[in-house]
């Protein structure tokens, strides 16, 4: 039986259900009519052909039977299921920017066919590997000459303001956005901007400062009926969208120093001689033997080992890291090599929770897990020593993510661990290879082991034991 998506309730024109490998969308009469128009106008084929929007077909009888009677609506559409749903607060800057540009591109292209987008939610863009795709088909509504862009405020708060936070101030959007699911308010950006930039940068003035000012004035104004709005000519709407597109395409992330992990590959002191090559061979061999459809790379850094997995039989990789500059490197690696690799911001010690309406609108990370394999290279010591998470907890969590995987253990004499301990008391008596193996043995079978240096960093391949 199909399960209703807990995040699908804001739009009364349709509801999402998950059913096996497909997504069903039951729509009302208005949305069904709009979908037919979208198809007959040629917009649907054009946008799907460009890979910009997700495909939608009418459900056949077998799929319809999967939906409860009351949920069938006027029409039921079928979408392919995306392997993983991610949220804007998990995207690094590069991905949020790609999503923003896609939204504008879709909107400008749809306008050519006489369609507008009813909203501008960033959650309506998802990633298939490194490529963004727009998923909310009922957002396409017929455009009438003179119509305003109803999603402008939402677009600014869900795409532009988070990007500006990083581009102008060097503040990562992720934590702020996670706390403010509807996006970063323009008044917050205005508060951060200096008087000069607030008024003299044209794009900021027209998209942030003035709308915010008018919003505040409206709040204090007496309640008098509004006069009908002047029509906004199509050319003016296109100008607004194109200007915004040009502005966003020029935004670059301000580096968040120190960028230690970005230089991990070239200036890394943790591996000597051919250790790094042997580590990569171990990971590649693991991928060849198991060919996981989807692998998670916890602590993916700039994606070197994710790439090794993909080149050796993994179908897709989702990477997680906390280093935003390394994630930028990972995002450019993914697009340069066209890898089916999605690098996301996630702190293993504090992953995305279930949140939003009824604490279910946006799912927590663990409930979204879809991995057939997990790799966690040089990660455990950061959690066990850097964050005081007991080693057995770390091992249990990692093993719980996928039925098999590779974990790298970094013992205490390692220079990196020593550096972590330099300024603090060593309270980690239970941190050692023996304890690690014991903890791993509690949940999994160790099927492979490679010591990169005698008594040094060691790779373990495990197979989870049921129960």
């Amino acid at each position, binding site marked *: 039986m199909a399960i209703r998506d807990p995040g699908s309730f804001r739009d009364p024109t349709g509801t999402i259900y998950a059913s096996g490998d497909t997504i069903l969308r039951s729509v009302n009469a208005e949305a069904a009519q709009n979908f037919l128009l979208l198809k007959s106008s040629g917009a649907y084929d054009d946008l799907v052909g460009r890979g910009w929007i997700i495909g939608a077909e009418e459900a056949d009888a077998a799929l319809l039977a999967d939906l409860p009677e009351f949920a069938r609506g006027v029409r039921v559409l079928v979408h392919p299921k995306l392997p993983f749903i991610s949220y804007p607060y998990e995207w690094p800057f590069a991905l949020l920017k790609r999503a923003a540009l896609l939204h504008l591109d879709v909107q400008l292209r749809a306008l050519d066919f006489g369609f507008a987008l009813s909203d501008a939610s960033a959650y309506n863009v998802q990633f298939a590997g490194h490529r963004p795709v727009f998923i909310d088909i009922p957002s396409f509504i017929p455009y009438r000459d003179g119509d305003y862009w109803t999603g402008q405020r939402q677009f600014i708060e869900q795409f532009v303001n988070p990007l500006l936070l990083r581009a102008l101030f060097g503040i990562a959007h992720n934590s702020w956005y996670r706390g403010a699911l509807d996006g970063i308010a323009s008044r917050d950006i205005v508060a951060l901007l200096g008087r000069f930039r607030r008024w003299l940068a044209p794009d900021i003035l027209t998209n942030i400062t003035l709308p915010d000012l008018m919003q505040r004035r409206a709040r*204090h104004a007496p309640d008098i009926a509004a006069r009908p*709005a*002047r029509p906004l000519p199509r*050319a003016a709407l296109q100008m607004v969208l194109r200007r915004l597109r040009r502005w966003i395409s020029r935004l670059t992330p301000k580096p968040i120093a120190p960028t230690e992990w970005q230089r991990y590959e070239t200036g890394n002191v943790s591996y000597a001689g051919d250790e790094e090559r042997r580590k990569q061979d171990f990971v590649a061999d693991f991928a060849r033997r198991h060919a996981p459809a989807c692998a998670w790379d916890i602590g993916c850094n700039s994606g070197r080992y994710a790439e090794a997995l993909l080149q050796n039989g993994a179908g897709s990789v989702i990477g997680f890291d906390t280093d935003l500059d390394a994630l930028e490197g990972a995002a450019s690696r993914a697009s340069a090599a066209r890898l089916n690799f999605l690098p996301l911001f996630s702190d293993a010690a504090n992953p995305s929770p279930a949140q939003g309406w009824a604490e279910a609108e946006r799912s927590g990370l663990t409930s979204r897990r879809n991995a057939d394999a997990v790799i966690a290279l040089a990660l455990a010591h950061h959690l066990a020593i850097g964050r005081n998470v007991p080693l057995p907890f770390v091992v249990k969590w990692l093993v719980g993510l996928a039925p098999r995987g590779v974990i790298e253990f970094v013992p205490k004499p390692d220079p990196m661990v020593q550096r972590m301990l330099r300024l603090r008391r060593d309270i980690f008596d239970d941190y050692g290879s023996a304890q690690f193996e014991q903890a791993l043995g509690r949940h999994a079978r160790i099927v492979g082991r490679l010591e990169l240096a005698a008594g040094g960093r060691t790779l373990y391949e495990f197979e989870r034991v049921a129960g």
Partner: protein
Amino acid sequence: MKNKKSPVVLMTILACLAALMPTSAYAYLDPGTGAFAVQSLIAAIAGGLIAMRAYGRRILGLFWRSKAAPEDWPKDSSGNGHS
């Protein structure tokens, strides 16, 4: 060059209009009020530009006609010297 200049002009016009604008027109409150108000300003400017262009054409048209008229005179078939 045109692209470099236009934002400054647009910005100045918007800033002036923002200062002059009566707020009561947007007294209803919804989350997009501010964004709508700015789009309304852009609509007003665009409308103004279109009106100015049309008006300019009419002036130009008058100008053209007055210039073109002498050429038509000899072609006047009625022969009374007036078109």
